[in-house]
């Protein structure tokens, strides 16, 4: 998997590159608009991470250029400018996702995977983990081909874990992803434990081959057990 990282901030570029390489991607990076243009013209990538605020041009122009070249690379916009206009403009120009800075690297990884999955499966959006199969459109969860009943929060938690398998999941980040931005002012996370406990129980009852492991003081880790 080859990824082009267009980011002008050296420290950020370096850390994202290091992280992606750890995740076994091949990473090329470009620091300027012109650099990025030359790279997309000369090479093919599986995914482009595009910062739209570049010193010598707007990243959105790279998107336009890709279109004129008739290339269909997956593009995820990473931007410090979390404005609705840019988001809409980016997605209209053919970007696949929009990730406002600052973001968690695990989140970036999940988005990259999701983009790949979508392009690979030609719109078929089943996510599989062990013997679990999730349909994100209908919110249906099948274990061994048998449907299990989850409430909305349980489904959201499972979906979050499945798209971040193997990663350490911080309980704050999980709470924010499932309950929204306002969760930061909540002092106790007891309600997460309760929801995760219920989810675990349902998964165990259905004999799912996955495990939500608690990491003391930090959060969780989603592990797929070999059958």
């Amino acid at each position: 998997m080859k990824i082009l990282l267009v980011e002008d901030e050296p420290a950020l570029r370096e850390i994202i590159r290091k992280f992606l390489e750890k995740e076994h991607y091949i990473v090329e990076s470009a620091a300027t608009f012109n650099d990025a243009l030359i790279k997309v013209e000369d090479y093919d990538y599986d995914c482009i991470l595009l910062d739209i605020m570049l010193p010598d041009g707007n990243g959105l122009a790279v998107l336009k250029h890709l279109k004129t070249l008739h290339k269909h690379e997956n593009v995820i916009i990473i931007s410090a400018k979390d404005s609705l206009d840019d988001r809409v403009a980016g997605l209209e120009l053919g970007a696949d996702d929009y990730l406002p800075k600052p973001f968690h690297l695990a989140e970036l990884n999940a988005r990259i995977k999701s983009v790949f999955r979508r392009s690979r499966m030609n719109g078929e959006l089943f996510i599989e983990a062990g013997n679990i199969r999730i349909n994100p459109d209908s919110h249906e969860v099948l274990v061994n081909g048998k449907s299990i009943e989850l409430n909305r929060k349980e489904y959201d938690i499972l979906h979050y874990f499945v798209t971040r398998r193997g990663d350490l999941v911080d309980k704050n980040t999980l709470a924010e992803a499932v309950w929204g931005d306002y969760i930061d002012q909540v002092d106790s996370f007891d309600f997460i434990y309760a929801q995760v406990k219920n989810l675990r129980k349902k998964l165990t009852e259905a004999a799912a081959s996955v495990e939500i492991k608690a990491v003391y003081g930090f959060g969780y880790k989603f592990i797929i057990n070999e059958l």
Partner: protein
Amino acid sequence: MKLVYRITIRLSIALLMLMAAWGAIFYFVIIEEINDETDDSLEDYSEAIIMRALAGESLPSNGNGSNNSYYIKSISAEYAAQNSHIRYSDETVYIEVKRETEPARVLNTIFRDGDSNLFELTVMTPTIEKQDLKETVLYWIVALYILLLLVIIVINVWIFHRSFRPLYRLLQWLDGFSVNREPAPLNNETKVSEFRQLNDTVLKNAKRNIEMYEQQKDFIGNASHELQTPLAICQNKLEMLLYDDSLTETQLNEISEIRQTLNRIVKLNKTLLLLSKIENEQFPDKERVSINQLLKSIVDDYAEIYASRSISVSVEEAGEMIVLLNKTLVSVLIGNLLKNAYVHNFDDGTIEISINSTTIVIANTGQEQPLDEDKIFKRFYRNSQRESSSGLGLAMVASICKNSGIAIRYFFRNDKHCFEVRGSDFVV
């Protein structure tokens, strides 16, 4: 009070005092002059009589049609020694011819004839009635005063309005001035240098205010924007650190805590960015939003969180409130109010939401004292020492309300903290 009224009243009072003083002085001067003239003629008269008396000529008859009268009486030496030889006085005397008493000027002269006999001559002449004079003077002063006043008021108002027109135009312009809007051009040509100076100064200050407001806004916006990248680097470096398998559990926990603190900075920064976006009116798209549905969906999202602290939530719907506003902003507004009601609540507390077609009231239990309404909507005002409170939630609410023309108000009723959001023209 309008300036023109104040000037008129002050002018009237000054005029009243001036006219009163003028009347009094006028009266005394006239009386003095009349007395002086009368005394002169009495003196001549008395001299003539004394001359005749001493010469032994016949004295003029009393009542010769001149209203003047005289007496001569002989007096003792003691009397002469006791009284001054020439005395003027004002008296009322009975005039036989007219058969009435009248005020008169009287002159007493003591003289001695060739045989050293002492006599006192009293001559008198009726004078004007001073009471009449006083009344007349007063009457005319009052009449003149009123007339003068009317004339002055009319002239004053006319001159005032003509000369102060630039001031009123300036005031009107200032009325419509706001630091967050491009001001309308100030068309206020005038030849008066003071007004020209005032115009220039006001314009200069208005421009400076706008600039300062812009700078402040830009600063907050830029600062929080510039913070994004370094924050992202910190966050991501810490995240990378987590993947290091050689870390002990204690170290992992430490990192987790640092990440949480960092998350709070990121949140704070995002909130400041959002605030500056609201103030820059970067949420122009409006759509129909049902507040009822929005409220219920947020309450639903929060269900587990409320349950974890045994806080009961009730929603009472007396009507549906549909607004034409930016959906993101309305969500932030309602979300922040609900979060506020939750965060500052106690365990086993209640949140009561009542909604009708124009008003939402969110009432929650909490601390027993009412909050200071003037302060709670200010940025970074914190009533409690809660670590997790950013002090920006209600500031954001206030900012959204201000920019969308929504009225928000806080009150304390039945031991509950109530926030009332009242819609007006944006309610569909």
